[in-house]
């Protein structure tokens, strides 16, 4: 037996190991540390980090077309299957009653999406082609599945950095948003009281809502239909009250299994060659800009509503008009509560937050339709 040959075989993996692989393994490790120590979106960052580490071990064949990651990518990402399955679960977890009780909150959910279009313009100025600029802009709504869905359709090349940006900024909401809230609102605006007015929402309205929204959105923005319809299917399972098992399955098993494989597969696309470049850095930077612009747009619109309503609307809820639920809504309520401990705007903030969830999906669909029509 030729020992030197054996040694050569054993060290083959090491010989193919590049400095870039080492850096990416470190990146994967950082994501895992953030997930474990800081609990930053652990459900996603943990599988992404691990997938990244495994994908950067040379010669495993896992990222080849027939390898595990290759198969998962073909089956779940290229087809947009995983984000859509996740949307069924998200829909089953959303309670739209705070929004249905206060329909005017829908305006805040729409205002929060301006950052998407602002960033799109900025990215175009930085010479990103339109399809890539649009995919980057969607990060601003801090909606992971929508970002992934849009990026898969428009710019699959940028999928990994976009997914990482969307999910990282989601966990950075409590750090990024409060300074903007304090900067853009006055102390007395943050103290505007919003009395909780219980307005019972008719059960028929709750059941009809997902069907009606699917029809309206589907007819207006056909490209958004996969996202909206799956979101609304999940919500219908929840609100119908007759398929408790399906609703629970959507909220637990379906979304958990999809999230695990989505994260793992996204992580596996973080190969050194594809990830370690200036494009990734500029996507991370532009994603942050998009998020800041979304928050600013929401706050400014909140201020406008505050002034128009004779100071009966607290402008802080404007910052909750993004997709990250329930973090953004809770944060707006907490900032108001810190300013005045007898002020509870939680339910209003949640109304704006659910509107933001719906708004970001719609905005993603509108963007898809526009870009697909233009390119």
């Amino acid at each position: 037996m030729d020992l030197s040959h054996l040694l050569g075989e054993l060290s083959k993996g090491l010989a193919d190991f590049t400095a870039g692989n080492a850096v990416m393994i470190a990146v994967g490790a950082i994501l895992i540390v953030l997930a474990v120590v800081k609990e930053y979106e652990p459900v996603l960052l943990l599988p992404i980090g691990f997938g990244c580490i495994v994908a950067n071990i040379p010669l495993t064949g896992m990222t080849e077309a027939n390898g595990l990651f290759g198969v998962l990518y073909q089956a779940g990402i290229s087809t947009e299957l995983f984000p859509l399955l996740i949307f069924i679960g998200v829909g089953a977890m959303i309670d739209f009653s705070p929004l249905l009780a206060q329909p005017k909150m829908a305006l805040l959910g729409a205002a929060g999406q301006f950052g998407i279009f602002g960033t799109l313009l900025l990215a175009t100025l930085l010479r990103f082609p339109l399809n890539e600029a649009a995919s980057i802009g969607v990060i601003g709504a801090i909606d992971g599945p929508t970002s992934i869905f849009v990026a898969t359709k428009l710019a699959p090349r940028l999928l990994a950095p976009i997914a990482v940006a969307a999910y990282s900024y989601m966990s950075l909401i409590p750090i990024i948003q409060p300074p903007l809230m304090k900067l853009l609102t006055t102390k007395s605006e943050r103290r505007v009281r919003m009395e909780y007015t219980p307005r019972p929402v008719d059960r028929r309205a709750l059941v009809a809502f997902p069907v009606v929204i699917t029809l309206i959105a589907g007819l207006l923005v056909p490209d958004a239909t996969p996202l909206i319809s799956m979101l609304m299917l999940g919500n219908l399972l929840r609100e119908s009250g007759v398929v408790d098992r399906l609703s629970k399955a959507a909220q637990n098993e379906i979304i958990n299994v999809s999230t695990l494989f989505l994260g793992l597969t996204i992580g596996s696309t973080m190969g050194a060659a594809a990830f370690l470049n200036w494009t990734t850095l500029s996507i991370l930077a532009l994603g942050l800009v998009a998020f800041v612009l979304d928050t600013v747009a929401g706050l400014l619109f909140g201020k406008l509503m505050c002034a128009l309503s004779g100071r009966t609307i607290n402008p802080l809820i404007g910052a909750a008009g993004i997709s990250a639920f329930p973090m953004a809504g809770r944060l707006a309520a907490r900032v108001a509560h810190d300013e005045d401990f007898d002020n509870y705007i939680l339910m209003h903030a949640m109304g704006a937050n659910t509107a933001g969830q719906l708004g970001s999906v719609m905005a993603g669909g509108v963007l898809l339709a526009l870009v697909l029509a233009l390119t």
Partner: protein
Amino acid sequence: MKLTKIPFRGKVQIEGQVFEVDVDDLDARPIVATVDGERFEVWPEVVGAQGGAPASMPTPSKPEVVGAYGSTPIPHSAPIPTPPSGGDKALLVRAPIPGVIVAIAVKPGAKVQIGDELCVLEAMKMRNAIRATRAGQIAAVHVTVGQHVKHQEPLVEFAP
């Protein structure tokens, strides 16, 4: 009827938060106070019940201002609603939003200061500290840990 107005203007500090308070006439009922640019109406039933006290005071006593802080804001253009009768509003702490009680910080007989935590109400998976908007002694706690409460359900009652 008195013709002279007793105005009050100044800063009131509550739990480290400074509020700009401007009262046009302390003798009027309800007292119309502007706190940080927002209009409040106050019926000083607790302090004023002994009769004639507010008229002789150059500044309102602390509980009275706190009453202003704890009352419902009324937008400038809105019609003035009639306040609930009796001292019930000031003594009863009610649930500001529906939720579940996850912790209770006071027992009957406990003395609390303004801003002290009374209980924690969890709503939408967020813990909301319910704090005392007045100082005093707790007469009764109407809820238990784990209890679901509706909007405006009594939580804690102060001794008169």
